[in-house]
């Protein structure tokens, strides 16, 4: 590892490393914008999240010094990511399998809410108020 160190023997990351990381982050930003214009179906979302993860790793390891600092900080951060993944995965297992149990899952929560009224064209010859049942 090159570079200086401070009074506390803390590693000082070189200017070049910071600049290279910043440049990489900007290039990856251009890549994520570029990829979003290509039709890849489901792969678009995977590419977007994948590039975002790569950028986050660069920020965490270089800018936030996880690569150079005490490993316990990396453990703490990993715990956050692991529990977020569990949260997301278990929620999606639930959400994506609900259609098998409740067939009406796809329908809007409040069909009679005001905001849906204008989306539906009013039946001809009838006032809009009478076309949907009053909901108190």
């Amino acid at each position: 590892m090159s570079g200086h160190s401070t009074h506390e023997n803390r590693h000082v990351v070189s200017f070049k490393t910071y600049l290279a990381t910043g440049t990489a982050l900007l290039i990856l930003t251009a890549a994520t914008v570029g990829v979003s214009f290509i039709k890849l179906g489901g792969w678009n979302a995977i590419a977007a999240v994948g590039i975002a993860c790569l950028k986050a790793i660069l920020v965490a390891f270089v800018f936030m010094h996880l690569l150079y600092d005490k490993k316990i900080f990396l453990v703490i951060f990993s715990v956050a990511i692991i529990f977020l993944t569990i949260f997301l995965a278990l929620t999606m297992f639930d959400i994506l399998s609900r259609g098998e149990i409740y067939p009406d899952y796809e329908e809007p929560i409040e069909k009679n809410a005001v905001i849906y009224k204008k989306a539906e064209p009013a039946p001809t010859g009838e006032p809009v108020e009478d076309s949907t049942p009053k909901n108190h």
Partner: protein
Amino acid sequence: MTSGNSSGHRAHLAHHFSESSQQSESARMGMWIFILTEVLLFGGLFVAYTVYRSANPEMFYNAHKHLDIHLGTLNTIVLITSSLTMALAIRSIQLNDRKKSIKLLATTFALAAVFLIVKYFEYSHKFHLGQLPGKFYTYTGIEGSNPHIFFSVYFMMTGLHGIHVIAGMIAISWVMRITIQGRLSSEYYTPMELTGLYWHLVDMIWIFLFPLLYLIG
């Protein structure tokens, strides 16, 4: 880590720590635990996003076209650059170059302000069109059911992130003040380092918000 010179009576060293390095390590650990809670706070919103997007994939695609991709990209570049200047400000104080550190902090602060100004223009445009969350939604030009859900998610996520940007600016200006007062040096720069960690977290959250909201393929 230890170099054996714990005898010095440094002004910044609290009595319950034996050395500067121990004190600074404890401070960083506290900050990382705070970052953990922040990840989980935003995590709830990311899960909400995933749930609603999986339920309304076409509506999310149609609604996201009403966000300005250029302004979103500009803000991403602004925030990444501000993260770089923040990291360089800490590097400068580590090398005892106070003047350069103050300049870099001022640049970081200015870039944060640019981010909020761009966000202000985006928000005011949406307020004008009525692309607002929940029952305040009055826009009619988006196909698919429940387009207000996208804007509820959009305003909640970018709004909470915006509050974090404001908090970051307050922290950066305070660190700039104590650096100008000469209270930070290569021996003691913990406040700047912790502010840096917080600012990089704000950058990191935006790195995920940008593709998820602006770049739905």
